[in-house]
């Protein structure tokens, strides 16, 4: 399908997060089944959830891609034929694959579209040309490629091109890190990465014994590319991808919101102005993240792309919960994740409007309608009804000092 702006592809680590991402504007989501994908610790989808996911997405014109991008050993393929048939039956729109064995197996079993995973580290038109012959319809470029390079790859091969625009970054070429395999006995390419690149190291130069202590020298800043949306669009990039199936529910909704608004802004005005970028920066700073950087999107990632802090993510805001139910003109039922109390200022993150709804809490009741002065985490409480609030809206508040 020809699009005037790239597709926004968001992570769906669970059915709840999938709904969140789509409600907040993702055009497509990617998710993992119980096997064959990389995020072993994510809440991967059961068959029943997968079916639910596709129905939910398709009802809202969003697409679903299923990730099968582990580096599989022979024994890992068991059951793959029936799984692929299931994906076809459910109407999954594409699978994301990194391994030639998997590519050839899927092509022989099914006509489902195959996207080449970033794990395959495809970085050039030479590589893409090769994979095209294998029946790949889209290539998810390695994060080392720039937008300009992606444009050339697309022009030379005619393949759909997808690029990461936001999220955590592997410091290594994708698929070229096996630190966890040897140090923790967990295969990083089958979902067992222990994030050794985020550790603090002491380094000693072999030549002159110069020593640097407590350095996170191999930890990458997070990728962020809102301001580059015009470049992506003008380069004809088909899909921009947000990393993070393991991230929080807040991230699952609020990051797609910022990028969907950015794409809308570009679509409507053919530019992203400074005001918009300031708004996006403010919004993204509310979500837990490492310092942001534009990776290799414009030029080669250099010294400034290294996250030289200990592994603590920053954010100004904390997620309070989400709206579970609305009793028109009466209550909003809030599932509380972080406690709040009377007088606190909360922000309801709107699905489709750039502006969020800010309000002060003046009444809290439990589900038996008893008045309370605070809402505890792990409970559902009622607050007075507010206009323009929708079910499953996220609610957050500024962190208290």
């Amino acid at each position, binding site marked *: 399908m020809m699009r005037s702006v790239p597709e926004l592809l968001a992570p769906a680590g669970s059915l709840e997060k999938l709904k969140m991402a789509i409600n907040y504007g993702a055009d497509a989501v990617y998710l993992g089944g119980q096997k064959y994908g990389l995020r*072993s610790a994510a809440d991967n989808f*059961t*068959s029943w959830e997968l079916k639910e996911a596709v129905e939910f997405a398709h009802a809202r014109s969003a697409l679903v891609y299923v990730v099968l991008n582990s*580096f599989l*050993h022979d024994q*890992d*393929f068991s059951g793959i034929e029936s799984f692929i048939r299931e994906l076809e039956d459910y109407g999954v729109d594409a699978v994301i694959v990194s*391994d*030639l*064995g998997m590519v050839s*197996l899927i092509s022989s079993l099914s006509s489902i579209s195959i996207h080449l995973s970033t*794990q395959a*580290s*495809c*970085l*050039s*038109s*030479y*590589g*893409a040309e*090769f994979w095209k012959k*294998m029946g790949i319809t889209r290539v998810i470029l*390695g994060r*080392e*490629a720039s937008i300009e*390079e992606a444009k050339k790859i697309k022009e030379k091969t005619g393949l759909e091109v997808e690029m990461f625009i936001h999220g955590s970054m592997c*410091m*290594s070429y994708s698929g*070229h890190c*096996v630190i966890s*395999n*040897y*140090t*923790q*006995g967990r*295969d990083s*390419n*089958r979902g*067992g990465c222990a994030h050794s*690149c985020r*550790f*603090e*190291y002491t*380094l000693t*130069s*072999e*030549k002159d014994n110069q020593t640097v202590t407590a*350095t996170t*020298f*191999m930890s990458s800043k997070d990728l962020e590319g809102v301001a580059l949306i015009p470049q992506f669009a003008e380069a004809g990039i088909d899909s921009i991808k947000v990393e993070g199936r393991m991230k929080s529910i807040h991230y699952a909704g609020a990051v797609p919101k910022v990028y969907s608004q950015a794409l809308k802004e570009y679509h409507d005005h053919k530019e992203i102005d400074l005001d918009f970028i300031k708004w996006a920066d403010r919004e993204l700073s509310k979500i837990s993240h490492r310092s942001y950087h534009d990776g290799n999107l414009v030029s*080669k*990632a250099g*010294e400034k792309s*290294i996250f030289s802090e200990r592994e603590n993510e920053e954010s100004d805001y904390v997620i309070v919960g989400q709206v*579970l139910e609305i009793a028109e003109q009466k209550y909003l039922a809030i*599932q509380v994740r972080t406690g709040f109390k009377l007088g606190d200022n909360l922000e309801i993150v709107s699905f489709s409007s750039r502006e969020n709804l800010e309000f002060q809490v003046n009444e809290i009741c439990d*589900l*038996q*309608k008893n008045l309370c002065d605070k809402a505890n985490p792990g409970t*559902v409480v009622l607050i007075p009804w507010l206009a323009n609030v929708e079910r499953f809206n996220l609610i957050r508040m500024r962190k208290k000092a």
Partner: protein
Amino acid sequence: MKFVTFLTENSAKQESDLILSTYELSKHGLFSLKDGLKLALDKNIKVILEWDILVTEDEFSLIDEVFSTLDFSQISAIRVQDVGALQYVLTKTELPIQLILESGNRNLIGIKKWISLVGNRLERIILSPELDMNELEEIKKEVSVPVEILIFGKILLFYSPRKLLTPQFGEREEEVLKVQGKSEESPHRGFSLHENRHGTLMYNPKDLNLFSYLNEIEQMGIEYCRIDNRDFSSELSHYFNSNDFEALIEHYPKTLIKGFFHKNKTDVLFKKLKNQKLLIKDQSYVGNIVNVIKNKQIAIQLANKTRALIPGDELVLLTPEGKRKEFTVSEIQNISGTPVEKTTDEELVLIPYPANLSIKTAVYWKDSFKD
């Protein structure tokens, strides 16, 4: 079975294939391409040219430069890892190809596909150290193309295009900046780190040694065993050149391991990370308990749009700890307190408190629940 080593000043012309690893094309180069080819010429040997760096679209212009001046008469074959490099070599040279399948490529179906795709220019495949002996044996039974594996030397753990060491140590004159690393967060010490023009490499503190498995490897029919001699001192080279492997091992400066050759169990641990009980999400799934008011009510967030919850339904409750309880729904209310005869999709409903329960307890219809 033949040994494969890297061309060094100490290389002897023996029963060994020699790989030329260069600053221009290798992750761990030993010479400039010009100097390496001159050394090969001086020794009157042909070399296998190694191209194991990954290359982005624009970097291919540098590759064009390298290939435009390359003296192919010195080169017996070229080995590549990047699929782009493979395509480049297939279309722009006529050299025999050795395909490095060390990253990923751990299954027979994929390996066979690579072999059929490259066709008759493929003279060797180099398989991953992640494959254990059973897997290697199975693969070798099925493929006729000669196979090479690493049997001795450094194990590469990490390859990044970013220069990670100069920000710490400043720009240096040497081609390769070498650093030792350790972390309090890892039980391992002595990671060897190299930064060169292609980025940063990190090696395992312990090196691979499969000399004790040479018989098994030979019996499998594996044709080539690679010894990474790039860091060998002249003493170690002497032991190797005179086939004195015992002395080589005895004088080797680093601890040696067998890696995954005996058995690769790197997928076992993380499967245990998940609570298998929480994975039951099928047509029997009603939803999750999201609120508990002790001795009064629980709230369930319904999550199954294919079936309505009605009073009289028999339910199974699975707590986050995996404990199972059963009960029958006597009454359902919505959040306004109005009785509900039949629920609708994704509603939040209140039902009488059945037992001592916590939030995140999963709720199922008993008649379709399969434990």
